[in-house]
């Protein structure tokens, strides 16, 4: 049994099929990349796992328990952490308070949550910006803060939605280092990514979606030579 399992997950919006029969697994301590061209249904699959959408078909389990259909807050409690494409920073708070608010999920005492927050901010390398208003951080810093915030909920699996989009090469390297450290903690990572240079070297496995359907799955090396993937990205001749 894998940690996170998607069994034939489907999602329709009226007549539009965003996901159809999508199945894959993520194991503890694994980094799985979810890639595909624009409109492939990556974010939809992601939102189904995190509880933002209830799948129209199929089942999603986390550590053997069904989580599909649960609201996002219940998924978070069950152990699904996530970040968003835009950082969705709590702008009325400092960076430390952003993470503190998340740490309160398992530590209701504010003082304890504050210690946890400091720990996670240090983990992503933002300890010296802890007392800064969160909205004043750069995009790259806000992304890492969002990762710290998600980690503070003590997830079993962390979903990251395009955490590397729009970052410069140095910032991509910093983020890659953070993701590798997360894997060392034994947390599974599912990463939706457009920046293939960022995800290919670090992923243990890649799942490729196109038009809502899984067209390939394998190691990064297998995926980069897969004919179906190449035609999905570059088009047929």
């Amino acid at each position, binding site marked *: 049994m894998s940690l996170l399992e998607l069994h034939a997950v489907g999602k329709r919006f009226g007549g539009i099929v965003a996901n159809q029969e999508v199945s894959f697994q993520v194991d503890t301590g694994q980094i799985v990349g979810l890639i595909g061209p624009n409109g492939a249904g990556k974010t939809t699959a992601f939102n189904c796992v995190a509880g933002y959408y209830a799948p129209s078909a199929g089942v999603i389990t986390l550590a053997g328990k069904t989580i599909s259909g649960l609201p996002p807050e219940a998924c978070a409690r069950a152990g699904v952490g*996530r970040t968003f494409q835009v950082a969705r920073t*709590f702008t009325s708070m400092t960076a430390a308070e952003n993470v503190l608010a*998340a740490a309160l999920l398992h530590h209701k005492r*504010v003082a304890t949550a504050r210690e946890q927050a400091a720990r996670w901010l240090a983990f992503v390398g933002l300890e010296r910006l802890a*007392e800064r208003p969160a909205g*004043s951080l750069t995009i790259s810093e806000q992304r890492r803060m*969002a990762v710290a915030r998600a980690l503070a909920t003590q997830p079993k699996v962390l979903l990251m939605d395009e955490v590397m989009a729009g970052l410069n090469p140095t910032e991509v390297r910093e983020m890659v280092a953070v993701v590798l450290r997360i894997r060392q903690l034994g947390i599974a990572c599912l990463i939706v990514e457009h920046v293939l240079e960022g995800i290919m070297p670090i992923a243990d496995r890649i799942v490729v979606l196109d038009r809502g359907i899984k067209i390939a799955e394998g190691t990064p090396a297998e995926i980069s030579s897969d004919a179906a993937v190449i035609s999905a990205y570059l088009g047929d001749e």
Partner: protein
Amino acid sequence: MNGKSSTLALGSAAALLVAIALPFVIGDASRLNLLILVLMAAQLGVAWNLIGGYAGQVSLGHAAFYGIGAYTSTLLLLKFGINPWLGMFAGGVIAALLSLAFGWSCFRLKGHYFAMATIAVAEIVQIVFTNWDYGGAAVGLTIPMTHDGWAWMVFPDKRPYYWIALGLLVLTLAATAIVERCHVGYYLRALKDEPDAARSIGIDITRYKQIALSLSAFFTALGGSFYAQKELYIDPGSVLSTALSIKMALVSILGGIGTLFGPVVGAVVLTTIEELTRAGFGGSGRGTDTIIYAALIIAIAVFYPGGLIGGYRAWAGRRSSRRTARGYEPQAAVHGEAHARDEALR
């Protein structure tokens, strides 16, 4: 940070002592009455701020809770001879319970639609009381002055009312300060800033909005019961009107929403202007005070979107940034102002 909060505590204690002693210095009944009006407006603003400011759910129906407080204590007193202190508490509890229905129906909606729904709910409550014979209908209810003194919260002299109003304000401020510092305070700010992100960190946003609303309803109702005991007369127009709901929101918005003392500042400014314009333009000039009132609100919305407290913070921030060449604080101030502006535009 510790030094700053102990200075604040010391300052608050000193201000409280001055406030308690004030009625001994001010003999003039009409001036004392103005102070009572300020305290009452401040208490309602602070109570409204819990849901409207901290949780960011702008309610324009809070008169419903105020009226329920006023009617509960008055009906319990008139029909069953129940002591108004007990009645006041009962009113708070009933308002908090009714806020569950209020929240259940209104929290499905967001932003402007939520505000509109709250107006509708308050209108319904007003219509019910206007037509309910047992509750005095449109004629209202009069509290007889048969017993007076502290036990029955009826006084020929204004001073005890002042102290009770002050006590209610302090109580509401204390509750808000506790909420602000515990996990609920962080959760409210989170769900106000980014509801989707708040859910991703495990916050049941409807539940926490409801907690804020119930607390807000409870304290608003206490204010309503107090009003009934002070005026000894209530009717739907005086305790359930939409104008009253709007005033509760205004006091808070004017002073600075989501800040502990913002509504107090707002109440001082708003009540003073109200009374000055009313006195200055005479009884027949009732329209004039409303015009000035409205002009002021527009001015504040344009120039100080973060309210008077937000405006002060931005100003203080700019000053300190001129003094200290570099550092984190100036950035904090600029950020605070930008945030306030975003907030106003939302």
